[in-house]
């Protein structure tokens, strides 16, 4: 169910229903001083038309022939008509970007661009939308080696930025009727984990006659997080998790028999879960939330010491392995808490908690050794920070390099998986 508001919409028709919002002064000023991203370029047919107009105009003035003046007037009127129709076409149109709920590196995701034609009588045709996804922090470029030291860095930086940038054009292929909406989909595959900017760079059109290439600034940006790519790993299976002692249960939402908490009713909740008495007392609908039943609980501790993870590829593999193992454990209901470096462990009770952890993994970077407050594999014993949360029990998964390229996962110091 869409509950978006008008504030999400962009474009000439973002203020739907604001009939008195149009001002001639704004329109005229926009003609003199276009807004950012707005530009008009003649196409091949536009150049032909302009050349024809100039040729016929020259002949008309040379000969004072009114037939040629009529033809010239008609050509100029057609150019003006083209501009007027293009203005009508884009008038009242609004769009909004809907990024996917989750993005994983290496996996396809769908970005939806929703279009709305706010005009009452006229349809809209032939718009295209330039969308781009690029990392917030582009990867660093190695130092130049060529002789032209002054030129190569710029080129290489631009080339590297372009390599990490994903572009696409989404076309409105049919007619968008007055008052109707349409959805354009962009399926793309993020290359790297990390924060990404999803932007609508430009909105363009050749409508109506293809004389002019009209660009309207897109002005839409969304920052999304790309979770690490899942990796394949091998389980060694030597270490089994130690069951928790009686009375030590993880407070996680699940489908167990014990009542964990009450929370507010949300549309879609089963009516059987409504706690009527509590609802009556609190005068709002409350539903029961039950705890998960699990005996094998693990804690995952990711340490990213820069002096340990010196190779970028190996570090990416580490992050991917940590994310994949955490997901597998969460799906199996065995992930109790997670921690990154020396931050306090976070209990994983709900999907939201797990997704927060993936968000953290998406942007995690090697931590320098001299960074105050950071924890390294050498400075503290494995799993020491997680013990208080687990009541002194271990079952802590840590990671260490496995050879030059690989990464191994350890449960209480015993190798349990590798990738």
């Amino acid at each position, binding site marked *: 169910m869409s509950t978006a508001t008008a504030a999400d919409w962009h474009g000439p028709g973002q203020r739907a229903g604001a009939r008195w919002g149009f001002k001639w002064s704004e329109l005229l000023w926009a003609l003199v001083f276009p807004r950012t991203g707005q530009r008009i370029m003649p196409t091949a047919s536009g150049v032909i038309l302009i050349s024809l107009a100039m040729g016929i105009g020259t002949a008309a003035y040379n000969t004072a022939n*009114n*037939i040629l003046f009529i033809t010239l007037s008609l050509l100029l009127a057609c150019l003006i008509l083209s501009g007027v129709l293009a203005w009508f076409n884009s008038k009242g149109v609004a769009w909004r970007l809907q990024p996917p709920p989750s993005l994983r590196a290496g996996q396809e995701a769908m970005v939806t661009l929703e279009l709305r034609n706010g005009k009452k*009588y006229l349809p809209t045709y032939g718009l295209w939308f330039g969308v781009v996804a690029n990392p917030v922090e582009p990867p660093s470029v190695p130092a130049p080696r060529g002789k032209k030291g002054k030129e190569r860095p710029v080129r290489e930086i631009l080339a590297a930025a372009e390599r990490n940038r994903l572009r696409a054009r989404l076309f409105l292929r049919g007619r968008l009727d007055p008052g109707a909406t349409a959805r354009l989909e962009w399926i793309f595959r993020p290359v790297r984990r990390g924060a990404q900017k999803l932007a609508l760079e430009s909105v363009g059109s050749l409508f109506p006659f293809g004389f002019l290439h009209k660009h309207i600034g897109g002005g839409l940006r969304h920052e999304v997080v790309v979770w690490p790519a899942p990796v394949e790993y091998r389980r060694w299976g030597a270490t089994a998790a130690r069951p928790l002692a009686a009375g030590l249960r993880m407070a996680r939402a699940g489908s167990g028999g014990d009542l964990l908490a009450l929370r507010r009713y949300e549309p879609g909740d089963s009516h059987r879960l409504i706690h009527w008495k509590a609802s009556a007392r609190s005068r709002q609908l409350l539903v029961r939330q039950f705890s998960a039943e699990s005996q094998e609980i693990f804690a995952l501790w990711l340490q990213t010491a820069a002096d340990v993870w010196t190779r970028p590829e190996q570090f990416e593999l580490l992050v991917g392995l940590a994310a994949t193992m955490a997901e597998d454990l969460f799906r199996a209901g065995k992930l109790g808490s997670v921690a990154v470096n020396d931050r306090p462990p976070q209990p994983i009770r709900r999907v939201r908690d797990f997704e927060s952890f993936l968000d953290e993994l998406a942007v995690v970077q090697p931590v320098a050794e001299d960074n105050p407050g950071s924890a390294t594999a050498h400075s503290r014993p494995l799993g020491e920070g997680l013990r208080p949360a687990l009541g002194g029990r271990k079952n802590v998964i840590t990671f260490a390099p496995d050879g030059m390229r690989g990464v191994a996962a350890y449960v209480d110091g015993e190798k349990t998986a590798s990738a």
Partner: protein
Amino acid sequence: MSMERKRPQLNLDELHQLKWLLGGVLALFSVWTVFYLDVDAWTLLILNTVAILSALIWPGWLALVPVAVHVAAFPVIVTCFAADLWANAQILPAMIRLDLMLILYRSLSYRQRRDDLQLIVLGLFLVVVAGVLTVSLAFAGQILAFTGCALAFLFVITLVDAAEAKDPPVHTPLFSWRLSVATPAWTAHADWPRLFSRLRAVADWRSLTFGGVLFTGVVVLSGLLFLAIPRFQLENSLFLDRFISKKARTGFTDNIKFGDVTDIISDTGLAVSVDISDPTQMPATLYLRMVVMDEYRDGSFRLSAPLRRAAFEREQNVVEVNGTERPRPGAPVYWTFYLESGVSRYLPLPGAFDRLNFRELQNAQFSHSLRVLTLRNEPVTMTAYRVEGVNTSPLLPDAAFAQTLRTTPRDANGEPLRSTRRELALPAGAADQAALRAAVATITGGATLTPEEFARRACEWLDQQHSYSLQSALAPGPGDPLVRWIGGKEPGHCELYAGSFIVLARAAGFPARLISGFKGGTWNGFSNSLTIRNSNAHAWCEIWDGTGAWLRVDPTPGSAPVTRTIDPQGEAALAARLDRSWSARFDSLRIFWYRRIVNFDRGNQLDTLRAVKTATQETGLRVRASLERVVQSLKSWLVSTWDARRIATAAIVLLALAGAGWTVSALFRGWRWRRRRGGDGRRADPARREAGRWLARLREKRTDAEPAATAVWPELERIRYGARATWPELDQVFRRAQKAWRTRRSAKTVAPSR
């Protein structure tokens, strides 16, 4: 929930078919303009028409054309153009034929975007060239039809490009061993009746109306631009009509054989249109002189070479010609002539004049003595010229001829020797001359007559001997044909009457010459202009009156043969020739085209601006004066004595005004409120109505204990009152509302049983 019927859309194949259709129609529009041109391209025109129509109806067969044909097409076309140029040495006709070949090729191949653009440019070339060369009213229709079709074509091209964006274009390699080109998918199911029915289904009256309004706007805007474009002439005179030659259609040349004028008379096409600034100055019977022919030989009259050399000045490139008349006091009367193309290079003139102005530079020769003006070439476009200070008198003084006549050698009787004067020359045969003398004796009765009296009697005699008919036939036999006709009783037309009178006058010793031109015409009641058709072509004579002037004599029955005074003028003369037929309506359009479009120049532009300025000022003055009158009357009403009746009247008026103001204000506020609510007041949004119905049902005894109703309530309110942009999914909300309603009803029915 779909509240309105969704309008269908054309799919990509149908868009391609529509594009093909519009391209074919555009090509046909273009090539048919050649019909108006006097270019030898009939074979190509017919070939284009047949090929384009067949390709339009059955596009699939084009795939059968071997690729080799496409490879060889361009070199073959260029070779044909070079050969045409070499053979005919006329650049413009060759270019027109080249254009036709290129259009033919583009119409017979599956076009991509650039080919479509080429087709438009090629078509525009033909339309513009045809317009420039004909300057006819048909150009207005052609260019408008072409513009509409081209805009629709470009529109569909843009839709096709948008629909197949990023799809790889069908590319035919330049060299290919394949026997035929790839067939586009859309040709497989090209079904034109189905396409038209789909177009009908897709068409929306709002969009069509909007398109029509916009096209009208384009026409109006181009008209305004035409009026507003600054005019200045570079006087380069490099123009298309120099590159094309054309023969006169009507035969008004300086060598007329009997029957030529009759052929012209059978043509009812428009020849000349005349605007007269003061129509009352037009004579009741208007004669427009074009050619003067002094020499009669071998049964035909012609302008002799010596007279041409003696009478005409050197050819000049001019826009103004000074005549023999002197300016007259009072407001000048302007005669503006619009001579259709192909009539003659001799310009029709009503007589002597003071000044003549062309619209553009012309190579012209003028004869002051003959009052005849000729252009170097036959004009292939409409020629406009304005004459000022016109004298329509039937007497044309000719001091030069009088002087020549005085110095001409004379015979024993004191008469000028015929052998030395072409204006006195008779048919060579002795028997013919004897027959003519006998006829003259019959006419004069042996008396010595003045030229005017002789002319009158000769005309009467001819009228008695013959009857007027366009279907004349000369009796077979030896001798001069005119003398044979004079001696017989056969009917005749104006040429025979005029020619006969001339040889009779010459036989009587009076110099005479033949004049061809136009006589009469109708007064167009719609455009207030004189319309002269080719059927008004006429031949008449001029006889030397012996006192230094040529006197017009029209021996054709139905005319006043001889008169020395100008015919009566005025409104009665106009009313006598008034024409308000449908043909006159069409001609008035043509006159409008000539007056306001073709003949529009900087002077007209300034006049238009002045007219707009004057109209604005006068309107302002009128408004101001009326306001002042209202204020003055109000003041006088206020200062007059007040009594109870006046007070009551004033109170009623004030109350009525206040009530009207309040009503208008309330109506406006209500209208604005409805607009803000998203409806226009005439028809509420069906989704809002539906949400209102559900709100009304669920409102009754609603409590928080009904979770479904509570949950759906704000969303229903949003649909009912909120902005459309914030609406949730309608289907889901109404379904949940229905569910909540059923839940409540089931709860009500269960409750009593507990």
